[in-house]
């Protein structure tokens, strides 16, 4: 297993480099320009000057190499300087957003907290709700609980978040005044009152996202459980006189977890990636909102950096999933 992990991590380097090149070329090739959000009153020659000052007119390979250098050399140096008060990165250009002219990593640092709190909590809740529902729905297949769970999760998955978000705002913020409709990113949690306020402002976006995630994960859990409940080993275990609890949670669940682990491993990087629509509806302004804003403004350094970090997480979590497969089912071998 250890050699497998080392080999996969080494293999990840060329993979990620290739991914970063493909993303760069793709974003660069996509139509649109960093000037798309500048009003039409700015004349063309001024636009050209702005593009030149951004360095956006340089050849694509040059910009790619520059980005690589900045990402893998200047930014780590800068972090080092920041942590230890040294000055190695002095005068070296960091990755700067075309849209806001501020360093991309500063923007990411500003936005990670709210994305992790909102999207992360929602994902955690989603999983915590989904697993019991999935297990119980499968165990009591076609009971009223199962039917209700199926109905809610199917409806929950088929109505998009741009609708549920607005619906919740209209009900709970506009009519009942229970929760705010906007997420205040400047709120600092220092005492119980501000903690309560944080909980209140998280309530709506977290509900929307958790419902959506729970719907998906519970379906996979249920189907995998059903598949396993019919297997011979379950009959054997029951025949041996094991309690239903042991059969269900130790044997069936463990064997059913492979697709669930896959889905969760695919979902966790998106926690970092943020939830584009939900973040926008509730003005959470996390990573998802940053990414979509950067894409609309063709802010290549921002899009490239965010997407690349996202790619790293995808590769990492897929590796973790592969390791977990081996833990869940020791018969799975990679080498």
């Amino acid at each position, binding site marked *: 297993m250890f050699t497998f992990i080392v080999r996969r991590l080494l293999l990840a380097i060329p993979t990620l480099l290739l991914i970063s090149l493909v993303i760069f070329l793709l974003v660069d090739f996509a139509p649109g320009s960093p*000037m798309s959000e500048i009003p039409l009153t700015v004349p063309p020659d*001024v636009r050209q*000057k702005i*593009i030149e000052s951004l360095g956006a007119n340089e050849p694509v390979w040059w910009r790619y190499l520059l980005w690589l250098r900045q990402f893998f050399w200047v930014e780590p140096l800068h972090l080092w300087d920041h942590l230890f008060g040294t000055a190695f990165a002095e005068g070296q250009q960091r990755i700067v957003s075309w*849209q806001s*002219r501020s360093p991309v990593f500063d923007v990411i640092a500003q936005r990670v907290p709210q994305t992790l709190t909102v999207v992360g909590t929602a994902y955690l809740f989603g999983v915590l709700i989904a697993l019991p529902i999935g297990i119980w729905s499968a165990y009591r297949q076609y009971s009223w609980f199962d039917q209700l769970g199926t109905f809610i999760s199917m409806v929950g998955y088929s109505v998009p978040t741009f609708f549920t978000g607005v619906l919740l*705002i209209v009900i709970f913020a506009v009519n009942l005044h229970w929760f705010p409709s906007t997420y205040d990113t*400047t709120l600092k949690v220092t005492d119980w009152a501000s903690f309560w306020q944080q909980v209140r402002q998280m309530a709506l976006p977290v509900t929307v996202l958790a419902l959506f995630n729970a719907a998906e994960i519970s379906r996979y859990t249920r189907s995998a459980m059903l598949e396993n409940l019919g297997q011979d080993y379950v009959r054997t275990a029951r025949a041996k006189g094991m309690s239903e609890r042991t059969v269900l949670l130790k044997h069936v669940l463990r064997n059913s977890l492979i697709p669930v682990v896959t889905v969760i491993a695919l979902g966790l990087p998106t926690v970092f990636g943020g939830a584009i629509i939900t973040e926008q509806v509730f003005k959470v*302004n996390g990573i998802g909102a940053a990414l979509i804003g950067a894409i609309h403004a063709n802010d290549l350094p921002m899009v490239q950096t965010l997407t690349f970090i996202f790619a790293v997480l995808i590769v990492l979590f897929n590796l973790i999933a592969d390791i977990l497969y081996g833990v869940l089912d020791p018969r799975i071998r990679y080498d």
Partner: protein
Amino acid sequence: MKLKTALLGAVAALVAAPAAWAERGTDGEVKLTFPQAVSILNPYLTDGTKDVLAAGFVIEPLAGYDTEGNRVARLVTELPTVENGGISADLTSITWKLIPGLMWSDGSPVTAADVAFTAQYCMDPAGGCAQSAKFANIDKVEAVDDQTVKITFKGPQSNPFQAFVGGQTPILQKAQFEACLGAAAPTCTAQNSGPIGTGPFRVTGFTVNDTVQMEANPNYRDPAKPAFATLVIKGGGDAIGSARAVMETGEFDYAWNTQIPPDAQAQMTAAGKGQFVVAFGTLVERIETNLTDPSADLAEGERSTAKHPHPILSDVNVRLALSKAIDRNTLVEVGYGAGGKPTCNLVPAPAMFASDNTDCLTQDLEGAKKLLEDAGWVDSDGDGIREKDGKKLSLLYQTTVNPIRQDFQALIKSWWNEIGIEVELKSIDPGVFFGGDAGSPDTFQKFYADVEMYANNFSGTDPEAYLAEHACDQAPSPENQWQGPNINRFCDPAYDAALKELTAATDPAKRAEIAIKLNDMLTKDSKVIIPLVHRGTLSAHSNALGGVAINAWDNEITNIEDWYRVK
């Protein structure tokens, strides 16, 4: 949050009597929400309206415009004129005198050197200054003494009020930006997101594309203002969500740019928590006609170029019929409500430049049909679509993705169908449409369609540069990487000649007369441009916020220092 503001409000009510005698910082916090978040607070590096608007609370120009479009002094003692000697008789220089004792928010004095530096900052060719067009005719800017700054132009200027007039060209502090000249300009992150200014507020916190936090400037020139101690601008979301946060949930005091369907406007107003305010500048939603052939059968590089005139739209009767068939009042009622007015002009305002052109305001389907009939466009094969010389009257109509524009497309299509024109609709991502990427076929400059709809305006109150966009040599073409503003490829020697006259004219009445003539040449006479709606900027503010007077000629908010909490 609500409790806190209520408490602060109560405290303020005890301390301060009516707003007229308000003291600085007694009204607590004012909260604004912008559907597009603020990216940067330096207008010279952006021209995003949201950025310029937020920066306007902090940094100010020498002079600006009031809500009527009149120029008013901001940081100077009076507006220079030829009479008071501020503008030289030959119109080649203008001299501004700063208010004595003016201070930056850090307590240091504002001097003419700061103004001269700001010009140097924007005129540096390596800086990529977004406002450089306003400095294009300037030869030099010099500080005569601490209070006096003299701008010398390259030649006589009929309109010397470009640089340092209006929120797009505020004064920067030399001490703060000295290290940010030229290529270093974009790297000065701290300066660009927290400029030191003379305005009523100063920046205390800034998160990119999210929140701007400000507090009252302790050195603001009017000791009684601003009434609010702190100010927050929250960005993101969409127009309807922002409007809701002011009009229905009451979380914010002011929402900028809340263009939402008229039904929703009415419903939110009925809730009684706030109101919509509108200001009309020069923004006109229009249909542009393509005078060149966009046919895909033509070779790339010849499509939509002057080499091939448009087979249908070159006929002025077709363009006139297209305009006649449109009911602009209905468009306003469906799409904009209070936020729009029907118009037939490309230059709808200021009043002195607006033509009295109202011929298009009543829909005339029969008249449109007759025009086409007389011009030889008849439906000879009975399929409901007219043709002439074997050419079907069929148009591709494109615009950006936007719910109101899609409604307009559908309505106008139904009217054009009615007069026997086949219409195909297309909508394009706004980032691509306005992006100007020469590699994309979908930009508005490339215009690979027969007609297209969008809105445009001009900054300030003088339409000369705006009208000059339709000169022959301004047409986008492969030779200039499709970068010209004359997207109709309109070319009329008489128009170009009149433009020359306008440039030469200095008498305001004469200028207005020529501008109106140019406007009519493009709209009334030829319908090369089919104006639809004169759009205002629609914003919403809570009933608990007083002193709001929105402005269409400068930044939308130019009087934030006068805002107060209604008790």
